[in-house]
């Protein structure tokens, strides 16, 4: 049942995770992922046919509130944490020419 993780899978996981991996990290990731998936495969021993997936344990989830601003203008304080800021906005690298 041992899982083998292909180069393509590692590339794909790297894209999904938005991580840049060097060769050594890729090798380690391949090993770690295979080991974890072998372990998780144990769940296959359980018959879950007809079982409803449970994302939350309590029935009361997603209690919505009115969309009203209550915390005032925090723009300056929020921008203080920005790596780069200009004219009251976040600066990002150019995304199109």
């Amino acid at each position: 049942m041992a899982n083998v993780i292909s180069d393509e899978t590692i590339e794909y996981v790297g894209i999904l995770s938005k991580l840049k991996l060097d060769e050594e990290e890729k090798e380690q990731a391949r090993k770690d992922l295979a080991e974890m998936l072998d372990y998780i495969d144990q769940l296959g021993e359980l018959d879950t046919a007809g079982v409803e997936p449970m994302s939350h344990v309590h029935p009361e989830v997603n209690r919505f509130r009115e969309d009203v601003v209550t915390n005032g203008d925090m723009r300056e304080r929020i921008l203080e944490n920005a790596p780069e800021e200009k004219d009251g906005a976040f600066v990002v690298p150019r995304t199109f020419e």
Partner: protein
Amino acid sequence: MKLTEMSAWELGQKIAGGELKATEALDACMEQIGVREDEIHAYITLDAERAYENAEAVQKRIDAGESLGPLAGVPMAVKDNMCTEGMLTTCASRILGNFVPAYSATAVEKLKEAGAVIIGKTNMDEFAMGSTTETSYFGITRNPRNTEHVPGGSSGGSAAAVAAEECIYALGSDTGGSIRQPAGYCGVVGIKPTYGTVSRYGLVAYGSSLDQIGPLTKDVRDAAAVLEAISGYDEKDSTSLDRKDLHFTEALREDVKDLRIGIPSDYFGEGLDEEVGEAVRKAAEELKAAGAKVEECRLDLVKYAIPTYYTIADAEASSNLERFDGIKYGYRTEEYTDLHDMYKKTRSEGFGAEVKRRIMLGSFVLSSGYYDAYYLKALKVKALIKKAFDEAFSKYDILLGPVAPTTAPRLGESLSDPMKMYLGDIYTVSANLAGIPGISLPCGADKEGLPIGLQLLGDCFREDVLIRAAYTYEKIRK
């Protein structure tokens, strides 16, 4: 008795009665920090100046006759994954190494209203991912009971700070045992409440369907008092519950005569250290002698809890940690060619190895083609685990067992083998999957003097029963 040896309750009474000033309580903690912090490294951030300002402000409120409750003026510490307005909140990660929140977590806000004096922010595993506090970007924390050993994790700094008397109590967070396990390793008390009891607003999310904030304290009374102070409905957290039964200190009674306690034999199987098993069974005997009905029972699916937990927690983590991209706050890489390169380099340089490992597994189990086989399967097993607990709690008020299979491992022993570290969470992760409350408290020590933790699990909303049994047991031990 030294001031730092006192419980929050005792210290709070002295401050409320005018016998002691809030600043004097803070002096005592600061002095203790001076003695022990260099070796223990429980804190990432210490802010003495702000703490003294707060202590003086709280003292003024007390002097003005304001009724603040039992924790007013008592110095405490907050795990560094909870936002504190104007104070660094790093999650023990390079990627948040310079982040200063513009607001405080609801739990922190509630404690401030109750007159808490925050000394600083405690060390933890990076993004709460780990069981030893060794994955922190800012260095390890040592176990105050034996400094060659880990304090546990991920709330290791909070547990160590309380055990070393560098604060009187602390807040932690528990996604798979991160309050209960370090409390067990450091010989203090920790509670993970029922999911939805304490607001998660301002807690940096790891596994949102599993995360809960809770107290780490010196005794059960303090744990009840702190939990009472931080609980309650919060409209800023959509999973927050509107519970009315939050008077946890009323459960502080020495009486277990009506309680049915089950000991799951599945919690005493392979991998459990002999000394740990003996101490936990002795605790069960003592509760039995005090009048509780105690018997062995079965709890199904124990071995499936860890694979289920890591699938769900890592899936949620991969999604929650998408927000760290170097744009709005935190670390940004120095050189990059375009937006995507900037994202990737920022995250690769900003996250540590364990965090990356979990993001990758989480991304994989959520990816198309694997979603049903892994993530959905885990959610189905979660439903089965919840059902197993429901059945157990139809017969018992409490399930009693160890917190962890061993006492605190030696420093450096765990990181080389992540799988082994994950297996150490076997007795704690199920409570998070099932949303039930759990309490961890000391029940002895091994040959090396390392504390052994006793864990009591209860049905949803039954913290009162856990607190009553734990309080009774603690009185028997003292």
